[in-house]
């Protein structure tokens, strides 16, 4: 059983490394305008030797776009998730560890935010801030925060009841130190796993924003934007959706497979 799990994790890691490599090396090896260069004589060309992944409605090479888009998409996704963790961690930690009144207040707040669909929040926020990558990140990051806060709080609540926390307290450790030394490391795995899952949602959230013209702006390539652009041509040029879609799918798959082993990697018990 376990051996199987590790191989699964390996696949995940390999997948992610490959994608990261593409995202990092891509822009170095491929000229930046390769993703925007248009071939008006080969619009919506299905995959050919010249265009292995086909071209889009403006005759742009899907392969270059998906490769150069990787960076944008991952940048947005990662920064957004990191942001939501940075915001959600203290919230959840404090409210879970101290419980009681603080907990009530904070969670009431979180519940309220949770009542607003993440997409709706993101839409409104980036509508307010205006469309560009930074604002997209902020919008998604903020929209995700309550979800993370909730999860972290639950974990903190669990850990705060563990005897070793009580032991630490009884040996005179201050609350802050307990949170840093004992609670944090023990909830970290859960947080990171949740993070990896959120990444997938973040990539797609960007596509959702593009629905209202928010998010990444053309002609820049991002997976979300590409999927969004494929909307009106799915029946006559399916590859315009499948290529970026597959990219997202592989990333999500990698992230999830990786997430499972990440837990073990972080856990000394598995060492």
């Amino acid at each position, binding site marked *: 059983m376990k051996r199987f799990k590790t191989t699964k994790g390996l696949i995940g890691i390999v997948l992610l490394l490959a994608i990261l490599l593409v995202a990092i090396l891509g822009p170095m090896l491929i000229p930046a305008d390769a993703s925007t260069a248009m071939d008006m004589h080969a619009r919506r060309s299905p995959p050919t030797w010249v265009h292995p992944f086909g071209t889009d409605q403006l005759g742009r090479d899907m392969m270059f776009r998906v490769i150069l888009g990787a960076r944008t998409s991952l940048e947005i996704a990662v920064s957004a998730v990191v942001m939501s963790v940075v915001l959600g961690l203290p919230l959840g930690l404090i409210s879970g560890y101290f419980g009681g009144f603080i907990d009530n207040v904070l969670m009431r707040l979180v519940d309220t935010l949770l009542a607003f669909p993440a997409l709706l929040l993101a839409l409104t926020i980036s509508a307010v801030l205006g469309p560009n990558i930074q604002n997209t990140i902020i919008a998604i990051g903020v929209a995700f925060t309550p979800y993370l806060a909730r999860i972290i709080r639950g974990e903190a609540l669990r850990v705060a009841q563990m005897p070793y926390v009580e032991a630490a307290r009884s040996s005179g450790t201050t609350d802050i130190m307990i949170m840093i030394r004992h609670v944090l490391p023990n909830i970290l795995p859960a947080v990171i796993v949740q993070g990896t899952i959120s990444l997938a949602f973040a990539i797609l959230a960007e596509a959702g924003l593009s629905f209202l013209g*928010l998010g990444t*702006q*053309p002609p820049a390539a991002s997976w979300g934007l590409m999927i969004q652009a494929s909307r009106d041509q799915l029946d006559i040029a399916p590859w315009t959706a499948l290529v970026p879609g597959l990219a997202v799918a592989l990333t999500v798959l990698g992230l999830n497979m990786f997430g499972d082993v990440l837990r073990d990697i972080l856990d000394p018990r598995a060492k």
Partner: protein
Amino acid sequence: MKRRDFLRSTTALLGSGLLGAMPTVLWAEDAPVKGGTLIWGHSETTQNLDMHQTGTASSGRVLQSIHSSIVTVDKDLKVIPGLAESFEVAPDGLTYTFKLRPNVKFHNGQVMTSADVKYSFDRCRDKATGAVNFEVFNNVASIDTPDDATVVIKMSSVNAPFLSRLAENGAGVVMPKDSGPTQGTNPMGAGPFKFVSYEVGTVVKMARHEEYWDGPAFLDAVEAREITEPTTRLTGLRTGELHMINDIPLDRVSELQADATLQVKTWFPLNFDFINLNHTFKPFQDPKVRIAFDMIIDKEALMQGALWGQGATTPSPSFPTSASYNHDLKQRPQDIEGAKKMLAEAGYPEGSLNIVFKATTNYPYHVEAAQILVEWFKSAGVNLTIEQLTWADWLTQCWVNKDFQMTMINFFTLWEPDFLYFSVWNSTGAFNFRAINDKVIDDLTVQARTVVDDTARADIYKQVQKQIWEQSHDIILWFRNGTIGAQTKVGGLDTVVHPNGSNLNFHKVWLKA
């Protein structure tokens, strides 16, 4: 508010633009048959149902079938009688007299009288009504009704375009006296179809008006289903759920034309597009820069790229067939190097210009065009970045607040030159959102209003076009086609498009058994 809002008010002025509304394909029609309900996949969401208040072409497109106008235009855009069987303008051009048709019946069965006409016009004039076309009546002094069949309108000063503006049914429609309050929920007029019901966002249902003055329509009823998503609309037509759809996505026209089970009607022109340079933005105050920008653009390639060939480039916004169209003008050919030189002369060497291009997602082809432009401008050393805006945002930022550097918009082809050139290029023009301030144009456009002789008037407007082109105040791109797709069983398709190109008229449409 919505895009058609201002399209509508523009159409308002230049009224029904469309002469070239002849079908590109002529169908061997078999004899019309009565009966059947036409299911129309409408590309827009109908909003306010009050013909006076409604801003949107989408609503207009529907209400056109419910209302009739006092005068209208024929295919040559000549004003012809509508509800009025005749009309005359006094030589001084200050008095208009309309003779109404006898026993025209409204949907409620009442017979139309001059009182109804007066009521309708007064309602439209009244600012409180919030009519989008109130300014049509701007210098109307009085509206008198000597008898039931006669309406006399007195002007305080000459207003050449008045009649043609009335032909624009927003202003010229006649509603039953005192029906105003209910028009919003239950629109009523003297048109070929009665309003039945509206489910917001879903469907407008209309039934034949048996006592229509021009003879009852063939169709028992028309159902306007509102399907804004292009793919979905196309699918609806393909699966036969819909008899016809308007606004075929441009990239799909050829594909549908190739489909023998469907008929496609495209007409030319639906509207013209032009790229707008904000004249309050420092670099664009220099004609050199504007001209250079014009030279960077290959209009034909751009049209092929963005419209998939569904249009024709033009250096002039004048209606192609109108007398005022200046045929001596030629669009500047693309000349990147030349452009670079001019920009350098203007003090903007390569890489020194960073321009934000605001494109509205409401017109996907604008975004496409913008992306193509970015490439050309890059090669000319100008860094263009696109900002997509929803229609509401575009209107606020570009149209009202003039907060933009470079953008692109389309107008329904305004066939009435005064409305076109005065409102769009005169420094005081209602639609001069680029803050263009050109003494020459101002003088010419004012002068033209007082000139009665048509050819002389046309010549003035030709000069205006020349000036616009030389100064490259805007970059005029092309006329865009209008499109309709339908099942082959739909007859009389070529009568569907009202000369104004935006509205659809189902009076003479029928469904083959």
